[in-house]
């Protein structure tokens, strides 16, 4: 009796020992960002003796917006530098949302900065707001590096316009992406006028050093993680398509072979950005999750044919070279804080869940997978899931539309009925945004705290 109890406790301790939730570094990072912004504002404060009249106010506002825009611009680029701490710890989806948000904000600051500074200069020259266009032309012609800055600002505006929701949806992904890459050129072009004409950098050599340091560090991170790291990864692992398998109508798995793939450090739940070196596909890369735990000789992704790119995947010939960047994503076992885990998959969102279902440590009954699809035919990978469930003693449930097409009711009550101790679970979730939102609300209602609901969503 005593021994059994001790054994049970020991076993549980054993399981829990592997569960060490790693906190996302989001909060300290955001604090650092705010501290930097405060330092930038202090720079202005320190260098501005007085704000006398309208001219002073307009120029002051122009300088503040300009300094903040210059600071945030570096961070906007940093967010897309694929720094592992951001991609794997904070989560690629969250960082992408930060990027979109801060990008929009920075662009607004740039526009405000241009308007205010030119208005201020016009006032200084004894002209009025109406002469702002002429003043802008004069300044661009006369001031150092302003030609470059004007060009860069033009690029920013184009990049911003192509990223507005409706415009972006109408553009092919590749076109949008390549326009977006121009950001690097725009940042480079607008950098120099900050140093040569910026009031605060002229007066304060330390500020200039800080600015060079900030932009230099970001450039180094971009070069290292976006260029050198992928080159090294692909030279080392030499991946190729092994086979393409149709799982259900519209969902295909791609098997990818290569050397020592277990050394890439990929975990279940993560994804790579894949570029297939086949005609018409080599110029864009797309994020697809691993749908099985990585093996030394094989990786597998499972993809639903929704876009041009994913539809073309089924025509991939075995032997096609593959260029991958990653692993990225924070939806891994590291997020887990409890012994019991509920995995929720919506449609093709099954891919990372399938990998986690297989690999998350746990005793019989600890792991539950809830799989939502339109019909039973759409339950891709079902046979594998059933086999894993049987082998591990895990629970596998599915929810599909009724024959009349009625949606299943995933409510708090239903969840609690199926999983009575649901509030003690960690929940991992992947699926379309609407589905994820409604499940999130049901889970919260059923008593699962938000910090234990882990999900990934690439909706902006």
């Amino acid at each position: 009796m005593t021994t059994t109890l001790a054994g049970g406790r020991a076993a549980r301790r054993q399981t829990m020992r592997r569960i060490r939730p790693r906190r996302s570094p989001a909060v300290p990072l955001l604090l650092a960002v705010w501290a930097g912004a405060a330092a930038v504002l202090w720079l202005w404060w320190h260098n501005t003796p007085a704000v006398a009249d309208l001219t002073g106010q307009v120029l002051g506002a122009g300088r503040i917006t300009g300094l903040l825009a210059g600071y945030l611009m570096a961070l906007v680029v940093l967010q897309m530098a694929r720094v592992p701490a951001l991609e794997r710890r904070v989560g690629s989806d969250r960082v992408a949302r930060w990027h979109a948000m801060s990008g929009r904000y920075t662009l607004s600051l740039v526009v405000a900065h241009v308007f205010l500074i030119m208005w201020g200069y016009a006032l200084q020259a004894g002209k009025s707001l109406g002469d702002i266009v002429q003043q802008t032309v004069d300044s661009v012609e006369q001031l150092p590096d302003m030609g470059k800055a004007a060009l860069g600002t033009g690029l920013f505006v184009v990049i911003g316009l192509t990223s507005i929701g409706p415009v972006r949806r109408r553009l092919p992904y590749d076109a949008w992406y390549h326009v977006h890459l121009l950001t690097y050129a725009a940042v480079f072009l607008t950098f120099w006028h900050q140093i040569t004409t910026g009031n605060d950098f002229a007066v304060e050599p330390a500020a200039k050093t800080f600015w060079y340091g900030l932009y230099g560090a970001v450039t180094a991170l971009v070069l290292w993680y976006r260029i050198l790291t992928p080159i090294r990864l692909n030279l080392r692992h030499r991946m190729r398509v092994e086979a393409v398998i149709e799982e259900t109508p519209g969902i295909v798995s791609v098997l990818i072979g290569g050397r020592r793939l277990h050394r890439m450090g990929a975990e279940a739940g993560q994804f790579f950005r894949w570029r297939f070196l086949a005609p018409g596909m080599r110029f864009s890369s797309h994020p697809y999750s691993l749908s099985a735990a990585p093996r030394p000789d094989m990786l597998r992704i499972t993809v639903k044919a929704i876009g041009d790119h994913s539809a073309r995947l089924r025509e991939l010939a075995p032997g096609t070279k593959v260029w991958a960047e990653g692993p990225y994503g924070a939806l891994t076992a590291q997020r887990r804080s409890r012994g019991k885990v509920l995995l929720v998959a919506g449609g093709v969102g099954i891919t990372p869940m399938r990998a986690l279902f297989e690999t998350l440590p746990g005793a019989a009954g600890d792991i539950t997978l809830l799989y939502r699809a339109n019909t039973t035919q759409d339950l891709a990978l079902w046979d594998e899931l059933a086999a894993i469930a049987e082998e591990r003693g895990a629970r596998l449930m599915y929810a599909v539309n009724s024959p009349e097409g009625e949606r299943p009711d995933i409510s708090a009550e239903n969840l609690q009925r199926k999983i009575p101790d649901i509030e003690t679970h960690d929940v991992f979730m992947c699926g379309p945004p609407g589905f994820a939102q409604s499940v999130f609300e049901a889970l919260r209602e059923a008593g699962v705290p938000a910090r234990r609901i882990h999900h990934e969503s690439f909706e902006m």
Partner: protein
Amino acid sequence: MRKSHPVRRVVLATAATVSGVVLLLSLKPASDPAAASAAGAAPQQTAAGQESPQGGARGAAPAGSGTVTGDAAQTQYGAVQVRLTVSGGKITKAEAVQAPKGGLSDQKTQLAVPKLNQEAVAAGTADIDSVSGATYTSEGYKKSLQSALDRMKPASSGTPGGGGAAQARTVTGKTVQTQYGPVQVRITVSSGKITAAEAVQAPKGGLSDQKTQLAVPKLNQEAVAAGTADIDAVSGATYTSTGYRQSLQSALDQAGG
């Protein structure tokens, strides 16, 4: 996974940014205490109620220039506050930085303040006539003027308008902001002529250093030669030249045209 509210977010971000910028701008003083002390002017005071630290020691030295602001005097219609520009112990300019506003008061202020300013400069004391029809404003003006004069005393050491007039004296022009930084000119005036001109502030850092080194000596020479602010701009340093001219003009205005 909390519901996102894009519109709310945009409104919040805009409101926070705008109010942050407005707050920062409004917290800055309207005139530059550092520039004034850099100009070496003795009785400069922006905040009411402080004695100039070097004030008492200035007796025979060539009197500096600066501004003195009197206490704000409350009247029935609003506050009146006088600022004096002092040069060589003389009031060269008087202005009201605060005066009653709104409705009838606007007219009265417009009518009375210029007269009071003139009287103050002419009399050099607070013993000036009230402007009829603007009694309250006049009384407030006199009070504020007196407090400004009281502050001047330690510096001017003696009767305003005394023997200093014939001596060489320095006058510092106002600080002019240019695209590259502030420009401020100080001139030495002797019997109505500019004998020296120098820039106490000029754009600094990067390219500006070179331009300043190039332009300022030329501008100084031109200023002395011309005796007016009507001098040629140094090519390649247009903004600095323009700022220089403006500051020079204000110094000349103060020197007592």
